[in-house]
């Protein structure tokens, strides 16, 4: 459902992503992890159509994100880390606006807006201006907007930031349920417990290069730390990739 081949993204002289390869299947929850500045958000920007790649091929649902960007966007839902919304719209107005951008109209739109407001527990705030929402409420509203049109791929940057424990639990369950229904969920997070709990596979990116890819168990084996939790595995893999004792030299790609 998501196919990345030889992706490079450069900002001037700085290469944020260097030759990334990745294939994520339908119905899979994929965790994209890495230290700060590793290239996660840049990759997400390319996937969601916010930035064109400098080099390489990226497809979502079989659509090239550059040459068929509208088709790719039409089957994608995107939730950024910090969702800046139109502060002087109400939550309901914002959802209606978002739905219409994806072609929803009339009764379908009304029902879907109500459904998302209810699911994300925003009904009592639906007619308040977004400027009065807390960070977590804005995040939930952005999630509702991303799911309105029933996307085949959901791209989420730091899903748990701003959510309370109840909200976090609900979102984790939501991701698993969506995947069961066939949706592909591509998420980045610094909360390794979340990644461990919801992801089928995890890719660890460092300095723009995928240094490890697999299930938590497979990653633990790669890090020669069987039985360890993901935090321990992540630290070992990324520290080793700094170059001192490299189990995984910098240019090694994940499979």
């Amino acid at each position, binding site marked *: 459902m998501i196919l990345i081949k030889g992706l490079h993204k450069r900002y001037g002289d700085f290469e944020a992503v260097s030759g990334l390869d990745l294939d994520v299947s339908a119905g899979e929850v994929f965790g994209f992890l890495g230290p*700060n*500045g590793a290239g996660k958000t840049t990759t997400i920007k390319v996937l969601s159509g916010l930035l*064109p790649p400098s080099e390489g091929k990226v497809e979502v649902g079989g659509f090239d994100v550059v040459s068929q960007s509208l088709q790719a966007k039409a089957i994608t839902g995107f939730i950024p880390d910090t969702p*800046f919304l139109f502060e002087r719209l109400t939550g309901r107005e914002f959802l209606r*606006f978002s739905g*219409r951008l994806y072609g929803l109209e009339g009764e379908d739109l009304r029902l879907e807006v109500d459904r998302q407001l209810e699911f994300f527990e925003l009904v009592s705030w639906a*007619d*308040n201006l977004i400027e*009065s929402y807390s960070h977590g409420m804005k995040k939930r509203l952005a999630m509702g907007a991303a799911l309105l049109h029933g996307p085949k791929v959901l791209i989420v940057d730091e899903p748990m930031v701003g959510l309370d424990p109840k909200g976090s639990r609900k979102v984790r369950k939501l991701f698993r349920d969506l995947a069961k229904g066939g949706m592909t969920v591509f998420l980045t997070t610094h909360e390794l417990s979340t990644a461990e709990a919801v992801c089928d596979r995890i890719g660890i990116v460092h300095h723009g290069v995928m240094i490890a890819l697999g299930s938590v168990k497979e990653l633990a084996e790669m890090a020669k730390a069987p039985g360890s939790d993901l935090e321990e595995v992540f630290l070992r893999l990324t520290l080793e990739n700094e170059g001192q004792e490299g189990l995984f030299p910098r240019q090694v790609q994940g499979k």
Partner: protein
Amino acid sequence: MGSGIGFLRTSWLLAACRVRQTANIFRFRGVRSVAWALAVMLLGAVFVWLDHLFFLRLIAAIQEKLEFLAPFMLQQLVHTLFLSFFGLLALSSMSSSISGFFMSREIPMLVSSPLSPTGFIVHRFWLVFFQSSWMILVFGAPPFFAYRYRLGLEWGFLVGWAPAFFLLCVIPALIGSILGMILMRLLPASRVSQAVSFISLAAASVIIILFRMSRPERLFMEVPEEEVMGFVEAMTIPESPLLPTSWAASAVRELTNNGFSGPYWKNMVFLFGATLGLATLFFFIFRLFYRESLASVDEGKTRRVKRQISLVERMSGSMDPVVGSYLFKDVLLFARDPSRWTQLFLLGALVVLYVYNAFSFPLEGMFYRNLIAFMNLAISGFVLSALCVRFVFPAVSLEGQSLWITLSSPVPMKRFFLSKYLFAAFPLSLISLALSMGTNLVIGVRGSMMVLFTLASLAMALALTGLSLGMGAVYPKYDFENEGQIAASPGGVASMILSLGYIGLMVVFLAAPVYRFFSHRLGLAGLARGDALLGLTGAGILTLAFGVLPVLAGLRKLGSGVPNPGFDRS
């Protein structure tokens, strides 16, 4: 706010931080920003020079035309200037103080730091002061340089004038800050800035209209003897011994007539005393109200909006979904942001003055009427250029950090642009037609010239909309605290320059058909029909080029993605 760091250290730290931020702009943005700053300074210097020249001319005219009344009229001029500065500063300081003390993004960090409260107040006040008064400090000084020169006064005049002028600027800044602090305490925070921008712009509109209706052009006319008393009465500014403007005007009068005399020092003591007293009052009110008012900024944000499928949404529902959605959103955001729609007061005042000026022209004969109509085309083009830079250029930047919504949705950029274009082009075309057709009807232009000028003004509105919209996408400014900063950005200035260039070229191209028309009507040998057609074709091609090419450039720029539209790089 604790008292961990003393007043001097707090002041030094905050000032140093501000200087460092400014220096870093040049340090990290390189040679281009230095060149840009120099260009802006040069442009500013030209305007200061023009300001000086204007007042030299005005004072000379008063001296020549009014002779024995001239000293009285010059005093009235000084008083009028002081009164205008005072009023403008009091209004703008009120809004700047609310922004500087409550809304600025750095306030939470500063307030949670152990800074000296006095240092914090002093630092923020000077920021507010310079933000609201820099333009008056820069452009308010040349009239007095011209005054000194025309009256042949010593340079010492300026030494005495400068502190009076400075204190006269500080006093309204203190009054505005005090009023802002009180309003924030009394009213819900979300309503205060709306109320202030409403009051400021409504007052500014009234001041502009009253100023024009006072017919200042009479200063340049001969006054018949029998009308002297009426003229003096009409020109006398109301004065009160309790007003700082009267103290400052008296100080300048004393300096002019008697140098540094006793009455001069008396008025200076009044000004200084008032400054000190207001500063103490401001400090007291700040300590009393600030904490609770600041807390209300967040608490006051909750606003419930009546749930309804509004007329706007129903209307936009019949359009293309994408274009309709953006129009719906933009109309709602415009209506809910008083800082934007209250500017329509100024616009209304401008249109009223425009038509009033046309009424005031003593025009006789077809030639003069059409000549003025032709000039009117250029002037209304300049007005449109200014409006476009202020309202249309920011259209893409205003999407700001929410641009990710558009870029990640299956929205063709062309339709996004179309919605922005329609949102701006419709009202601008109406304004352009009102300025052009309204004025032409008033001055009696009819027939083919009326058709030509109407079509030209419509074409200019459509082209300038495209130009500003495209330039706004090519040179966006996503990081801003108010919309005015977007228009004042380098891209905004470039857009303004291009707009003025377009208007100038349009005037050149349209001169040919207009000249042919005159020649024909006056029975003279003029340009051939081909030349006139060439001019019209040139104007058409120019309109297409200026209206379309920037939009295409903007589409390409947005198509290449925006590095930071709505979330941080990590």
